[in-house]
């Protein structure tokens, strides 16, 4: 076989048949992945590698209406926006907090000890800017945004055959995965993540040619080098992900010349998180070596009309997570998975005049899984001592949530997060 006629799949099946030609043509990517796939191919049982799913609630989820405190001050501050006591979903074992009615599907997880809540979580000294807040949460280091916390974990745990599918970002934001060296994969829509070729051209050969654009070129400025590297990374990732989403030969790229269906560029709001989590489940089950999956649910910046908007979002969150748990359990993968939510900040305690809330500070997040020491609220939304008389104070540092996740995932969490952080007994021992 000559390199130009070889697809990645054929390359892997022929294992060892390319050698010198591959190196010269810049098929370094294939060599890196070959080691990974051979390693996994030799396993007959599903790997026990753990997987973290991080759900970004983009916009700043209002923690107080998600995890409702039974504190009179709450209703004083929110005469119209406050959740009525008889609507709050009770949490067994505590009367201090309850859930927004749309989060009812999560109360089963709470009862089964699979859900812990972390309340009053954030960063001290953070402004109320979305973008600064997201930067801090993405990086886990205030005022440093060259790397993300997951990126640093990828760097710290990289092995010789670095697999860019260890980390998959869906929903268009991958800043948490930015690393010094380790690669990761981003998908906007998994079903559309492919490399179709023009009519009459061989899809495999054209992709093999495209691969060569990624050949290391000494003297390239950094940006051009990064642009080059993106190409073999993309080709490898597309081939692997296609195995998850292919339903027919024409979609898989084997007959690689089909036309695209029309897409609605507006159609992202509802159902998007559900789709992302379903894909996450498939990625986990397919055993591609995925370790961290980032998904995003957008729309939480509820300055106005919060009641219906947040209700819809929390409803989709709870339903899609509950469904995810059922799917993973049915397929024997639930023990391997932990799910955490995060959001750039909570919102102002007092409602504003537009039936909404403005930016705040401390928020409420969820940590879910069989390894979680559930049925507890760690931290609090302390309404007696507000930050600047206006916001829930971030009594728990965001990095405690990250440390908990990374400790469970395995790897040097203190190194990644700058120091060790209290994990408040969130993991079962």
């Amino acid at each position, binding site marked *: 076989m000559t390199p*130009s*006629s070889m697809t990645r799949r054929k390359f892997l099946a022929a294992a060892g048949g390319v050698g010198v030609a591959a190196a010269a*043509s810049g098929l370094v990517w294939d060599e890196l992945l070959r080691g990974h796939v051979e390693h996994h191919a030799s396993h007959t049982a599903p790997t026990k590698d753990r997987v973290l799913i991080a759900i970004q609630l983009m916009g700043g989820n209002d923690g107080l209406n998600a995890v409702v405190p039974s504190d009179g001050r709450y209703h004083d501050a929110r005469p119209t926006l406050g959740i009525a006591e008889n609507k709050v979903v009770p949490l067994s074992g505590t009367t201090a907090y309850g859930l927004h009615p749309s989060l009812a599907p999560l109360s089963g997880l709470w009862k089964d000890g699979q859900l812990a809540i972390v309340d009053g979580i954030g960063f001290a000294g953070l402004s*109320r*800017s979305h*973008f*600064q807040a997201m930067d801090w949460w993405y990086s886990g280091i205030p005022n440093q945004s060259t790397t993300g916390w997951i990126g640093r974990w990828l760097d710290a745990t990289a092995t010789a055959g670095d697999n*860019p599918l260890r980390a998959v970002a869906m929903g*268009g934001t*991958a*800043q948490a995965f930015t690393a010094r060296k380790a690669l990761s*994969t*981003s998908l*906007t*829509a998994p079903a*559309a993540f*492919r*490399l179709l*070729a*023009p*009519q*009459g*051209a061989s899809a495999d*050969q*054209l992709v*093999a*040619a*495209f*691969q*060569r*654009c990624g*050949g290391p*070129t000494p003297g390239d*400025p950094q*940006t*051009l080098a*990064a*642009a*080059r590297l*993106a190409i073999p*990374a*993309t080709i490898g990732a597309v081939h692997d992900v296609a195995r998850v989403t292919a339903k027919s030969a024409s979609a898989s790229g084997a007959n690689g010349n089909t*036309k*695209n269906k*029309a*897409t609605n*560029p*507006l*159609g992202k*709001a509802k159902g998007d998180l559900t789709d992302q989590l379903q894909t996450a489940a498939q990625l986990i089950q397919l055993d591609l070596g995925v370790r961290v999956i980032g998904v995003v649910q*957008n729309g939480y*910046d509820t*300055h*106005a009309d919060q009641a219906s908007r947040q209700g819809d979002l929390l409803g989709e969150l709870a339903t899609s997570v509950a469904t995810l748990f059922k799917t993973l359990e049915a397929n024997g993968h639930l023990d391997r998975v932990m799910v955490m939510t995060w959001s750039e900040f909570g919102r102002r305690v007092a409602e*504003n*005049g*537009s039936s909404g809330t*403005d*930016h705040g500070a401390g928020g409420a997040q969820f940590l879910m899984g069989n390894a979680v020491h559930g049925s507890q609220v760690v931290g609090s939304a302390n309404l007696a001592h507000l930050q*600047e008389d206006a916001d829930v104070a971030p009594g728990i540092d965001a990095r405690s949530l990250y440390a908990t996740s990374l400790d469970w995932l395995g790897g040097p969490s203190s190194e990644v997060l700058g120091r060790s952080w209290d994990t408040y007994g969130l993991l079962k021992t």
Partner: protein
Amino acid sequence: MTKTDSQSIRSQVAWLHRRCGVGLAPGELDAATARGTQAEADRLLNPDANGVPADPDPWAGSKYSTDPREKGGGSNRRAEVLDAAGRWIDSMVHANRPLAARLGWFWHGHFATSVQKVHATGLMIGQFRTQRAGAFGTFPDLLRTMTVDPAMLIWLDGRKSTGRNPNENYGREMMELFSLGLGNYAESDVQADAKALTGWSVTPAGEAAFLARRHDDSPQTYLGRPGVHDVDTVISAVAANPAMATFIAGKIVGAFLGPDADPAAATTAAQAFTASGFDLNALYQNVVTQGIAGTSKWSPVVVDPVTWWVQARRATGANVPPQEWTALLVEAGQFPMVPPNVGGWPGGNAWLSTSTTAARYELAGHLAEATDPSAPPRAAAAAGDWARLADTLGRPEGFGPATVSALVASTSAGGAPGVAPLTIALASPELTLA
């Protein structure tokens, strides 16, 4: 003229059109090189004086909804958005005045407003028309028009902000993202301008209206200035703050000279901008002049998917049906009128992600297929003349050896003559940078 001289002029004018324009149609690079760098820059910056015809309104004759009560959903709205986006892209591809076309797109990303919340496409187009009209005036004027723009009033909840109950959404983002930058205002300033900007609403006909009874007219101290109580005094206070010139000049320098440009360039630009009374035209002049003075001032820029697409279409003369480019631009992570949030598109290396790379590859294939065989890029590709191919795509410096190796390999991939290499060329790393 030595080969070096004319080649360096060719490189400079190609750079101008990649960075500050919408790419080059066949023949345009030759014409620009013959004029010389200074003359070409002048033609870009001063089209009136150079007799360059103005471009028509991209959406002339359209009848999109301007009803602010629209709740969205439905195929009518989708059809309007696709139609408006298609017309906008077409107008950039065919622009007589490339700088204005490019700037129209830039200011959309700056004042990033999404039709997903505004719903009425007609109000979005109204905002873009206002931006295009104001792009060559002063920045404070542009900022004022955006502050009371109907789409903006919906997007950042200005229309729900009343004297009795103000909300902070526009007040904060206006300073943080649109005019001053983080760290140049205090939380108390957010509360102050939120109050001062109350009272604006959008009529059912889609026009901004000021309702005094909903306005808090009490004087605020804002950005260190007392007596601020309405949109005009808010804008004056912003303009009086030195951070504004630095911030806006920095944005234009970042766009034209690159994110890692010599920091002195931004300082120089901010000074010229301030001296001119915040005239945006003067700012563009200053930045472009600095750019053509020497490459040491600028750094590579990753082009965003829409800009890449526009430039590729202009170079090849081709187009593909909406059902092909729409899905792929969404996959690439960028669609007109749908920024991910008020911060706009992240840009830079975010456009080197696997999803963008895959989408761009497919868009390249569609475009290559649709390119007329006699069009210079496709003819060069079919002839295996890689240097000429690069030149027709606005890269007279040529492709690097890895890309050339890819082009050579692509000739074995079959397909109609020139299509496979043209696909590779359009999707190459060189074409992802301006």
